[in-house]
């Protein structure tokens, strides 16, 4: 440590026999011990500081004044709710974080395309055995056909009921039944399955979720009551949206 730095450190230091100086001050004191000039400056400072300290500590507040101040302090009402209180700010931030997480869970997750539905679509597209049976009936009239085959709840959204299903099948995917029909005139397959085993939530009910599955296929999924209905269509996502929008009304 050089002399100027030691001097500046010691100027801002008050010697107190009850407090150990910081390492920096200890170094500065060593520098002072080796310098006659700094040493005499510091000794003069110590003498002045002793006088100042004794003078300040020698002032005694009168007991009646202290008592009066004590009474005034005692009459200060306890602090009320203050939104700028750090504790309040922390609670507020925590609450907002909680709301964000819950919102993400309840609204954000359903807004995304459910991964379980993607897996079902991939399974349907890569099914090795094709247990389809020819039906040649409008898609909307196949509910009874599926009931007879052991699948309850097959339901096609009204605008899509008119499309002709060439064949149909009940597929087993992860031990769950999935009803599928092929609609060649739209290069599509319509899929219906129970939402509960796959924990699929879509909000609001009846709205479509879209996904470009790969370069060849696009998906659209909706949930009505307990059943999910999915369209797998060859082509782009834009084409699929146009197809569903066209038949909306």
């Amino acid at each position: 440590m050089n002399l100027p730095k030691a001097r500046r450190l010691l100027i801002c230091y008050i010697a107190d026999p009850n407090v150990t100086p910081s390492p920096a001050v200890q170094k500065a004191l060593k520098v002072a011990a080796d310098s006659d000039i700094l040493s005499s400056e510091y000794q003069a400072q110590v003498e002045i500081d002793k006088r100042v300290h004794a003078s300040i500590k020698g002032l005694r507040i009168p007991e009646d004044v202290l008592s009066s101040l004590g009474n005034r302090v005692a009459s200060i009402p306890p602090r009320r709710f203050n939104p700028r209180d750090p504790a309040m700010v922390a609670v507020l931030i925590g609450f907002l974080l909680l709301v964000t997480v819950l919102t993400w869970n309840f609204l954000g997750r359903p807004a995304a395309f459910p991964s379980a539905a993607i897996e079902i679509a991939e399974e349907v597209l890569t099914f090795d055995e094709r247990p389809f049976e020819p039906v040649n009936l409008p898609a909307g009239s196949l509910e009874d056909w599926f009931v007879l085959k052991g699948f309850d709840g097959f339901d096609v959204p009204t605008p899509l009921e008119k499309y002709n299903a060439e064949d149909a099948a009940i597929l087993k995917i992860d031990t769950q039944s999935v009803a599928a029909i092929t609609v060649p005139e739209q290069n599509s397959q319509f899929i219906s399955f129970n939402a509960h085993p796959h924990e699929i939530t879509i909000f609001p009910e009846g709205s479509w979720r879209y996904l470009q599955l790969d370069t060849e296929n696009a998906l659209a999924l909706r949930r009505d009551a307990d059943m999910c209905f999915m369209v797998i269509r060859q082509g782009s996502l834009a084409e699929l949206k146009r197809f569903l929008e066209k038949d909306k009304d």
Partner: protein
Amino acid sequence: MTHLPKEWRFLPDAWSYAVILTGSPQAATDLVTNTLNGVATRHDILGNKHRRRVFFATLFRDANKSPRLALPESGLSEDTLELHRLSEPGRSTLALFHLGFFPIDEIADIVGKSEKEMPDILVATRTALTSTPRP
């Protein structure tokens, strides 16, 4: 001995500081009482350290608005009167430095100077005390 809550135990030292500023125990009492009334109603002051700093900064500001009152009959020691007669911001810097409530950067804030100026202010103030003739 009146018992003050922990967060207000600096009041006797604040009074001592006010005596150095005003040069009069009565004026110091008035100044501390007024400052206490003002600070007590400030709901934006959070935390004991913040409150203490605001308190001393208010004492510094308000005392320097008034003329110095030291009179021979004030009953103050010559050393205290010497401190009272020092010019600002050296007087407050030295006094606050010795009260030991604040680090040097906070003292600089209270007296409205930068931390870099503090060593020079302290040297000048101590020099002024040395050059004051002792009775």
